[in-house]
């Protein structure tokens, strides 16, 4: 447990260092340690995705009558954002069928623990790209076509098929789960938002890991592979790149790994390994939550026409605005508030030279004991994680409730070929409690605001040990968070 969590309480209620190891429950321990648990999940999902790909390429072109569109963009997406990420971190990654063929090819086995395909290069991922930047661009390149992808079965099938092909190619060149970690468009935001999750895999006892020279969780043992995600589980402090595959539970011969329940968001207080790549991921995700809400839930026809590529010229303008707003506009707007936060924090320190030092630049600021502007910008950007996730949950309510009834016909007739497997093929579209959606969305946003403010205050205290400076510094950040909440609230019910 990191020292920085001791004494902190999340929302003033939950001790940040509280943990409960689920492996203490014998049945659960046995289930999570078994290789079959993950494998069964993958096989079930592999079957589902085989149906999805078949539906995408060979089924009806009507999206809301096609298994691929309904299951992926209504059922799976909502389950991912509303349940899996907040409660179980990247557990989806453990059962994701897309990179499974690649991993099996790489290992030359499905259930065993050894083997390597001769001819696979097993290269290390380039050092300069060991971050989220590439994922950010891959995600944005996909997101701009979301109007097409979420409504055209063939587009969804090409996206998923492309991921499978790319993951296989990547597995032949680079080691382990390099694709999942550095290229998967879904993996990036799952990684960032899983820092908020109420579940983690960590070492149980620091001292045991310290004395254990073999580092089986990283290097592997007879019982399990070294971390496929290239993490060092004996030293892991954040969920970002933990794919929840439970491999370290099997490989550790000392049974020193734990699957902990914990208060939400404690990873956001961990200073280690923060980076601007993750900040931009936070901007991208929060920005997309707002823009998708405007496009998909809003009344503006010109936005829908542009996202639907009615004409290439309108799509071109839309793309420029979409990229500009998310990659530059939003970070710059946040930057103005972060700049004010740095200024106010410096001004509230006692000495005049300190203020001058901050103005003079990061080196002078460091000499005066002040955090640099970059540090202030970076650290406070993690406060956007709870708000972003809650924004997506609120958005998902508005997608799920009106559209979930489409799931009943497609499970009976997944390809739109006139089947009626379960007798539900003719179930009519039935909006489900759409009148109460805003009453779920607004409390969700307010909860996100409360978490974000709480983390902002805690991060502010770490940046500025002087409480007066911390209070002054966090003020613009809180105002920014409130402003974003109001904008999202307006989009949902204003």
């Amino acid at each position, binding site marked *: 447990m990191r020292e920085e969590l001791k004494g902190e309480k999340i929302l003033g209620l939950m001790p940040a260092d509280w943990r409960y190891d689920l492996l203490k429950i014998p049945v659960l321990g046995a289930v999570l340690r078994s290789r079959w648990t993950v494998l069964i999940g993958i096989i079930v999902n592999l079957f589902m995705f085989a149906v999805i790909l078949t539906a995408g390429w060979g089924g009806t072109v009507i999206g*809301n009558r096609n298994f691929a569109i309904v299951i992926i963009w209504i059922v799976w997406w909502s389950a991912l954002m509303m349940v899996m990420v907040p409660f179980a971190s990247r557990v989806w990654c453990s059962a994701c069928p897309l990179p499974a063929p690649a991993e099996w090819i790489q290992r030359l086995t499905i259930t065993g623990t050894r083997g390597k395909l001769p001819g696979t290069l097993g290269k290390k991922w380039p050092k300069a790209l060991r971050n989220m930047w590439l994922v950010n661009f891959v995600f944005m390149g996909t997101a701009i076509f979301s109007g097409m992808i979420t409504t055209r079965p063939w587009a969804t099938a090409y996206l998923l098929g492309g991921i499978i092909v790319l993951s296989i190619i990547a597995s032949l060149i680079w080691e382990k789960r390099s694709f999942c970690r550095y290229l998967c468009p879904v993996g990036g935001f799952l990684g960032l938002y899983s820092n908020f999750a109420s579940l983690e895999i960590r070492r149980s006892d620091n001292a045991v890991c310290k004395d254990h020279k073999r580092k089986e969780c990283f290097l592997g043992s007879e019982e399990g592979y070294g971390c496929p995600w290239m993490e060092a589980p004996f030293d892991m402090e954040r969920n970002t790149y933990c794919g929840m595959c439970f491999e370290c539970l099997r490989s550790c011969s000392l049974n020193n790994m734990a699957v902990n329940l914990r208060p939400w968001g404690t990873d956001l207080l961990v200073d280690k390994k923060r980076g601007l790549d993750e900040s931009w991921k936070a901007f991208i995700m929060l920005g997309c939550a707002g823009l998708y809400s405007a496009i998909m839930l809003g009344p503006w026809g010109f936005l829908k026409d542009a996202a*639907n590529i009615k004409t290439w010229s309108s799509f071109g303008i839309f793309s420029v605005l979409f990229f500009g707003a998310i990659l530059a506009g939003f970070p710059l707007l946040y930057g103005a508030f972060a700049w004010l936060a740095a200024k106010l924090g410096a001004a509230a320190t006692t000495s005049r030279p300190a203020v001058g030092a901050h103005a003079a630049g990061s080196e002078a600021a460091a000499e005066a004991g002040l955090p640099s502007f970059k540090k202030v910008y970076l650290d406070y950007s993690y406060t956007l994680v709870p708000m972003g996730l809650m924004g997506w949950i609120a958005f998902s309510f508005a997608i799920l409730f009106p559209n979930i009834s489409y799931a009943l016909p497609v499970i009976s007739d997944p390809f739109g070929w006139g089947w009626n497997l379960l007798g539900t093929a003719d179930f009519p579209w039935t909006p489900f409690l759409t009148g109460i959606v805003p009453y779920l969305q607004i409390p969700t946003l307010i909860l996100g605001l409360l978490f974000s403010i709480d983390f902002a205050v805690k991060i502010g205290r770490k940046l500025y040990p002087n*409480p007066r400076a911390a209070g002054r510094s966090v003020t613009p950040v809180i105002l920014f968070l409130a402003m974003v909440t109001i904008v999202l609230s307006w989009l949902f019910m204003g």
Partner: protein
Amino acid sequence: MIPLVAAAILVGTGAAIQAAASVEPTTRDITIEAKRFNYSPGVITVNKGDLVRLHLLSTDVSHGFYLDGYELNEHLEKDQEKVVEFIADKPGRFSFRCSVTCGPFHPYMVGWLRIRPNYFFWGSAGLVALVTIGSLAVVWGKGRETA
């Protein structure tokens, strides 16, 4: 200072809502054109208590009109006007959406009906303001204690 700002926000919000609530109900005849994949106008604003008479017209293919919260559902054939009438007795913002599959973007064919006063939105905004002001009061108060 902070309690004064909070009080001003609450009083201001309350007064604005009260003013909107005191408008006399009237009859509103509104024509809405449905065309893939949006409604025109996309946003309709009425007051609580108004008798709303919607003249719905599809100009390209068959569309639908489903109003959240009021559970009104109409099937619109091309070029055939349908009239829907209801009393806007529930304030707030409600989405209306296409209920007949009309093409790829059909699930996103949405418009907004605003029935003023939108208590829930303004109440939520007030709550956001109170959370913000309360948080600032706490962090500034802590700074003052240690100064």
